[in-house]
Structures are given as structure tokens and as C-alpha cells.
């Protein structure tokens, strides 16, 4: 399939998902109602729901999905590991710890999201310090991330063991992905995430060179500083995705894999296509999460996790000769 066709197909899927995200929910609403209000018509409850609930939410899903996919694509190239995902550097563990501390110690809801973000930044900071001291760039990053994740998850368990059951319930729901709380903060964060995605795309040549191995990249002029910068930027993107929608699994692992099958491994196309496909995928999953059991909601992480698990079964069966 030509790259042009891939761009057209993904653009079509993205538009369809956007429309589905805006129209589907507790009630199917015609997006024209919102357009009518925007053009000066009288506002109705349905138009309010589209403008104030669905659009911010679809926006957050679009950018959270895009951020996770771009981050996954970058990590898979940098670590030359097909199983690398956005949370491999311990970002999700730090976020979970930050959120748990906030909920258990009764911080207000807004501060809980900020606390989760600070937890993610803390994990990135530790990874950065470790990388500076030990000078590592590849598998050591992954191992430190795994170690940090264990430390963070044990700390979360420690907090859970001492907390009220209501607080534990609340934290667990958030840890399954929460796009329901999208508002102004999430929209602002989306803009920052878009800037980082563009910055990472500017490194597309570096990423292609790094994917060939450390020796090759060093002889080609890619410095350790640049590799570390790419990893930190991608980790920061993962941390921003946590602010936008909590901890959403599998998007960053699965979407770049699928895009790579059709568009190849060149980062020039892989990154924007992964961003579009990731955003489309999360918007669809989110639309499903609020449509399947109306008027209730399934955490979006459950839907992405289920589809991710099924995808990996398919992936393992498809490439069984390699294992």
C-alpha cells in the first residue's frame, strides 16, 4: 500500500472517529445542533452537552491518544524493543503514586491531577539523574523504569493498605483511564502536548539512525545528549497524557505497531500517522465507553486494554515463527 493511501485512510478514520465521538453518548446527538448554536442559534441542553462535555472530552481523547502513540513509536525506535510502551520509564507508576497520595490525603480533585503529573515528573527526574550519572541510553533505561515502577506500585499498595475503601475505589477507577473529567486544564495541556509531538517529529532523522543501534548512531553523529533529550521529551509526553486522561494502557504499544505494518518504520511518516491513528483509536474507545452501558460508563482503559490484549494475541499468532 502506498504511503499516500495510508495517509488518506487514516485521515478518513480520524474524521469518522471525531464524528462518532461528538455524536455518540448517552443520547445520539446531531452535531449540527452544536453548529447551529455556534452560529448564533438558541442554545439547548443537547448543544450544551456537545460544546461543553463532548468536545473537550473528544479533544482530550484525541491528544491523549496521539501523545501515547507518538511516545510509544519513539520508545520502540530508541530502545529497539517492539514491546516498549509510553509508561516503560515508570511514568504511570509515578502518576499512580501521586494520585493515590492526593486522594488518600483528601486533596481537592483538581490538585489530584496535578499531583499525578508531579508523580510522573518525579519519575522522569529520577530516570534523568540515573541516565546522567550512569551514562546509559538503552536497555538500562528500561530496567530503571521497571525498577521504579515496582517501587511506585509497592508504595501505592502501602497507601491502599492504610486507606479508606472509598479512596481506594476512587483511585482504582482513575487508574483505569478517566476522560470524564476533561475541562480547561486538559485542553491547555493538549496544546503543550502538540508542541512536544512536533518537537519529537523534528528529530525524525535521529530516530531513524538510533533505530540501527548505538554504535551506528554514534558514528553517524547522534550524541548521548540528543538521545536522552528524545527520551525525556517522550516521557514528558506520557506524563501529559496522564493529565489528559489518567493511565490508559496499550494505546502507545498497539497503535505504532499497526501503523508500522502499513507505513513502514521511517519516523518521518510513522510519527504523524501514529499520532492521528492513536487519537482516532482513543476517541472511538471513549465513544464506546460511554455508549455501551448507557447511562453508565466503562473506564476507557478497560476498552483499550481489551482491544490491546486481543491485538497482541493476533500479533503473537501472526509472528509465531519469530518466537
Amino acid at each position, binding site marked *: 500500500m502506498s504511503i499516500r493511501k495510508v495517509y488518506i485512510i487514516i485521515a478518513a478514520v480520524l474524521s469518522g472517529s471525531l464524528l462518532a465521538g461528538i455524536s455518540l*453518548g448517552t443520547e445520539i446527538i446531531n452535531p449540527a445542533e452544536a453548529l447551529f448554536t455556534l452560529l448564533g442559534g438558541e442554545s439547548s*441542553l443537547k448543544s*450544551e452537552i456537545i460544546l461543553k462535555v463532548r468536545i473537550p472530552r473528544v479533544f482530550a481523547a484525541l491528544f491523549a491518544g496521539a501523545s501515547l502513540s507518538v511516545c510509544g513509536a519513539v520508545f520502540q525506535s530508541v530502545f529497539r524493543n517492539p514491546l516498549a510502551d509510553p509508561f516503560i520509564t515508570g511514568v504511570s507508576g509515578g502518576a499512580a503514586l501521586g494520585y493515590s497520595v492526593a486522594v488518600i490525603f483528601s486533596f481537592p480533585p483538581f490538585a489530584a491531577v496535578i499531583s499525578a503529573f508531579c508523580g510522573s515528573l518525579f519519575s522522569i527526574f529520577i530516570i534523568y539523574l540515573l541516565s546522567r550519572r550512569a551514562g546509559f541510553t538503552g536497555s538500562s533505561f528500561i530496567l530503571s523504569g521497571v525498577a521504579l515502577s515496582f517501587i511506585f506500585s509497592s508504595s501505592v499498595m502501602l497507601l491502599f493498605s492504610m486507606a479508606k475503601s*472509598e479512596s481506594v475505589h476512587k483511585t482504582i477507577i*482513575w487508574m483505569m483511564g478517566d476522560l470524564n*473529567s476533561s475541562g480547561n486544564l486538559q485542553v491547555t495541556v493538549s496544546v503543550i502536548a502538540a508542541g512536544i509531538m512536533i518537537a519529537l517529529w523534528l528529530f525524525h532523522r535521529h530516530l531513524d539512525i538510533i533505530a540501527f543501534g548505538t554504535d551506528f548512531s554514534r558514528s553517524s553523529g547522534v550524541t548521548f545528549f540528543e538521545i536522552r533529550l528524545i527520551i525525556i521529551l517522550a516521557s514528558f509526553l506520557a506524563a501529559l497524557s496522564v493529565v489528559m486522561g489518567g493511565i490508559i494502557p496499550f494505546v502507545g504499544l498497539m497503535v505504532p505497531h499497526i501503523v508500522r505494518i502499513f507505513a513502514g518504520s521511517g519516523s518521518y511518516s510513522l510519527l504523524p500517522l501514529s499520532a492521528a491513528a492513536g487519537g482516532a483509536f482513543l476517541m472511538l474507545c471513549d465513544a464506546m465507553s*460511554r455508549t455501551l452501558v448507557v*447511562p*453508565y*460508563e466503562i473506564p476507557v482503559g478497560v476498552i483499550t486494554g481489551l482491544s490491546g490484549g486481543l491485538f497482541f494475541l493476533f500479533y503473537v499468532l501472526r509472528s509465531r515463527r519469530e518466537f
Partner: protein
Amino acid sequence: MPSGMNLKKIIITAFILCLSLLFFIGRRGEHGSIIPPENPGRIISLSPSVTRCMIDLGAVDLLAGITDYTLHPELKVESVGAYISPNMEKIITINPDLVLVSEEDRYIQKLPLLEKFGLRVEVLARNRDFNSMCGNYRRLAAITGRSEAAEVKISEYKNRISRIARPETPPKIVFLVSVKPLVTVSGESHISAIINDAGGENPFADADTAYPILSLESLLLSGADAVIIMTMGYDYDINSLFSGYKNVDFIKKGNVFTTGDDNIPYYTPGDYTISVEKISSLINMIKR
């Protein structure tokens, strides 16, 4: 260094020894059972609601241990750990005559382990409404020899609930136990019964799970007359929570209220009565 064959023998012997040790410890637990007395003198409560019932019944002197989060400043009872992870060794060491737990909490407690050590465990039935709470209260009273006092209290609580003025048309009340994420209560939760007894109606009573996750748009489209948010340690800025929705009735009329978590989460007749009174006073504030 032992040869491969010797190493194999060592591992197999160590494995058999470990299994024998585990079997011995298990058997010891079975035979070392304690025969509980007819009227238990030393009780451990693993459920905060059970502890509150004991306090209400004036049976604090029988408590030998309780889980955290039920501690009253005046209550000088030893803690056996957090509510969701009590310290089993401590409970076994205290060696109570009876361990009490509520059905709602049994799955997070390690009851089979306690029974294995010969401790008598009583699981109180599920608390769906005032009547089931009174049933458990009476059972506790019978165990602690305070049946008469319990009947007096229950009759007082019933009177208080019956005195509550209810509106002719029950307003639709959405009760939120969490705002971010948005979690409401269904008919499976005792909070729904509180709403009904206070004269309201829960539009999400039909859900299968006690505390379903709600989408914001479902809340806005629910046709609720009022939303009551249970605060858990912090005060919400109500005005900013649902600001900007001009076409949603409960927001337009300012019918968003908060209430504390001092009584509502606990399933005791006393807490239930106070909760019904609190919700009723909020219902009276609803602007129609």
C-alpha cells in the same frame, strides 16, 4: 559443590520438609481451636459500622479490638490495623471470644484464616435498608445482651424517621460519592434507601452495581431536580463544579448540595436516621 544428582536430592528433601511443616502448622491450627463462651466478653470488630453499632448499644466495654477509621477520641480500644488490611497476627494474639464483620466487608477480610485458628466469626447480613440494619442491630444486641436497649433505640429511630416531612412529588436526587471520577449510587447501596426515606427518588436506582461510574452527560440528561455530593475530607466549590450549563435545571436553580461523610457511609440504624434527616433537610432546600 554438590553434584547435579546431590543437588536434586537436596531440593526434593527441602521441598518435602517445607510441605510437612506447612501441613503440621495447618493441623495445629485446627486442633488448637478455642471453645467460645456463650456470652462473649471480648469482641473484635473488623467493620467500622459494627463498631459504631457497638458504641450505640453501649457495649464498648466488650470491645477488645477494632479496625482504624472508627476511632472516637473517647474510645480507648486497641487497633487491630487498617480496615482493609487488619493485622491477623494481632487478632489471633488478642484471642477474642468473637470476631464480628459485616457481609459488605467479608471479602476484604481473611475470615477463613481466623476460623482456622479456632476463632468464632460472626458475619452480619447485608445492609440494604433501615430494616436490614435494624435486623443486624438486634442480632448484635442479642449477642451482647442488650436487646432491651436496642428495642428502645430502634423505636426512637423509627419515630424520628416517621416524623420527617416528605414532599408530595418525590424530587429526583442524584447522589455522588465521587466527582472526579463521577460515581453515583444505585438501589444496591443503602444510600439509595436513605434518599427514598428522605422523600426523594434515585434516578439511577436500577443499576446492577452499588456504585456505578456515571458519564457527565448522563448526569446532565438525567432530569435530576438536585445533586448531592458527599464530600470526603475537602469542600467542593459547588459553583465551579457545574458552571456554564444554562439549560440544566438543577444547575440553573442552584440545586447542587454537599454533605459530609460522617454518617452516610455507615450502615447502622443511628447513622441511617441522621443521614435521612440530613438529606431531608437538603430536599427541603430544593428550588422547584
